[in-house]
């Protein structure tokens, strides 16, 4: 547990970076600090491992005042991940990951064995171990950064915009894997981002800071979306917060319709049951895309990949209403494709049906109550 007690940071020139900040980051959970630039979120994070010293107040990690511990010793017990990874360019990946164990005097062989384990754990090819950071892409470097922070198995991790310098596809992947990793490891994490979507996706609780280092609201993501305390938070959380709140709304089973399908490589069917759109699946019944029978040319006799519309997203059975609605809205046929957790087709659902489910929740749900555990 990390506790901020009236922590302030004032610079000699009078600027106030953090003003009387009070909050608790509970053990085993992800606390996200989010806010516009200049809100003191990075300063707050860096005060935890004393990269910056507070001018007033105390920060306690498990009731131990951080300023009472030697800074280097303190930092060796805290995982630290930063935006551009900051890997040591002169060390191989495995030695980068083993950096903290080396500092702690761990036997080299043992440190490397542990590092190897972590390299695989963060989803990197073990063959990368002997390579150098400059040979890796930004996303891969960031994985190494996470592995390096985990190497000494610290109970606390500080992450300063770790995923903001990679492209959106990779970022999404890194976030998913980070959540998976955290569900195994249960670290106490303080995570800084300027991206409210990332905050809502990753946080067990989110602290919204406003410029000048004031805490505007500390709440679970669902609460933040449904009940922002003031104009600032509402504005920061964003316009389509109603839609995004559906991320935390689940309904048991979606009642799906059977969907007529055609297998990849099979002859093109002459007609479809409902309209011109027909769903194409592969041999394992995994949806591949939609086929528009009205657009076929005479030489289109068998179903091939280039004939498909791939724009639609998939909804997972048991997933969020947001996913279900998005699947409908993004599907060219208007029918959202629902799959089970293996990705095989279950059937389809329409936007009207999803909206019906959303409407039904309203009376009992004055607020969208959700917790981190409902997150997929």
């Amino acid at each position, binding site marked *: 547990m990390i506790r901020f007690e009236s922590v302030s940071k004032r610079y000699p020139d009078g600027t106030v970076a953090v003003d009387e900040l009070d909050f608790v980051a509970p053990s085993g959970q992800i606390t996200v600090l989010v806010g516009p630039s200049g809100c003191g979120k990075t300063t707050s994070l860096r005060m935890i491992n004393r990269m910056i010293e507070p001018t007033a107040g105390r920060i306690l990690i498990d009731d131990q005042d951080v300023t009472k511990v030697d800074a280097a010793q303190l930092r060796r017990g805290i995982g630290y991940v930063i935006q551009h990874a*900051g890997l040591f360019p*002169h*060390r191989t990946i495995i030695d980068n990951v083993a950096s903290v164990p080396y500092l702690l005097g761990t036997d080299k062989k043992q440190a490397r064995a542990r590092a190897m384990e972590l390299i695989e754990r963060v989803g990197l090819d073990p063959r990368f171990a002997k390579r*150098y950071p400059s040979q890796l892409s930004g996303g891969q470097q960031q994985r190494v950064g996470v592995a390096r922070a985990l190497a000494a198995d610290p109970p606390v991790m500080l992450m300063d915009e770790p995923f903001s310098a990679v492209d959106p596809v*990779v970022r999404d*992947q890194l976030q998913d894997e980070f959540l998976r990793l955290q569900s195994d490891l249960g670290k106490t994490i303080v995570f800084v981002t300027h991206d409210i979507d990332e905050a809502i996706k990753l946080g067990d609780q989110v602290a919204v800071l406003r410029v000048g280092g004031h805490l505007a609201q500390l709440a679970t993501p669902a609460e933040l979306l449904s009940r922002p305390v003031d104009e600032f938070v509402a504005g920061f959380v964003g316009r389509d917060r109603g839609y995004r709140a559906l991320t935390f709304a689940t309904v048991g089973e979606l009642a799906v319709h059977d969907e007529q399908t055609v297998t990849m490589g099979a002859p093109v069917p002459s007609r479809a049951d409902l309209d011109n759109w027909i769903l194409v699946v592969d041999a394992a019944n995994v949806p591949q895309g939609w086929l528009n029978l009205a657009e076929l040319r005479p030489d289109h006799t068998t179903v091939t990949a280039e004939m498909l519309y791939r724009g639609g997203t998939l909804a997972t059975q048991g997933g969020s209403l947001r996913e279900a609605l998005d699947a409908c809205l993004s599907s060219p046929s208007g029918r959202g494709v629902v799959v089970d957790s293996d990705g095989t087709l279950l059937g389809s659902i329409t936007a009207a049906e999803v909206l019906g489910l959303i409407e039904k929740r309203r009376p009992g749900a004055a607020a969208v109550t959700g917790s981190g555990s409902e997150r997929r």
Partner: protein
Amino acid sequence: MIGEVFTWLNDPAHWKDTRFDTGIATQLAAHVRFCAFALLVALIIALPLGLVIGHTGRGKWLIAAANTLRALPTVGVLVLLTVIIAPHFYGRTDTGYLIPTEIVLIVLAIPSILSNTFAGVENVDPAVRDAAEGMGMTGKQVLLKVELPCSLPLIFSGFRSATLQVIATATIASYLPLGGLGRFIYDGLAQQDFPQMIGGGVLVAALALVADLLLYLVQRYTVSRGLTGRFSKKRLPDPRLASVTQAEVAAI
């Protein structure tokens, strides 16, 4: 003319010492000695200084001051120092001449080593330094385990250019009654023995090239491949590309 230079260089008699003349081998050794000593002292002064200034960011004026030293006319300083120092030494020793020569060479070598070391440390990616501190390295560890190895390419380039300058300039030792390869150049000039003069120049150039080659080899085996980008041709498939295709497959 070129032929005569080769004849002069190839004559075994010129390589050996005689009662009256000092041969090429001995002068070459003397030249190497002057240079090695000056470079070693310059390195001992400039390397730690550059590292500390780069690490702390304090005392940057010293870098600028050292760079102004480059503007000093070497021969002028040599003569001045000799006039001041030499009279304090009597007898048959060279010390009175050796000290001014070494000072001039050291002063010549310091600026490039110092400013390159400083630039090397200062150019270390701030994120790398931040990560090093954030993981619990002490200031000394950050300097020795991160900043120094990351600065090596620039430090080497500074040291190599200092080496070339010192080897070339050490010929002025023979302006004073000292040995070194400059002896052949000055004597050749004085005696209108141009093959000897040019031969001396060729030897200086050859020595400089050999020294640079040796330093290149040392650099090659001390600087991390991660910094120089010399990797084996074998490439791994980029998993990022693979993941994009996975993502594409996932979206219908």
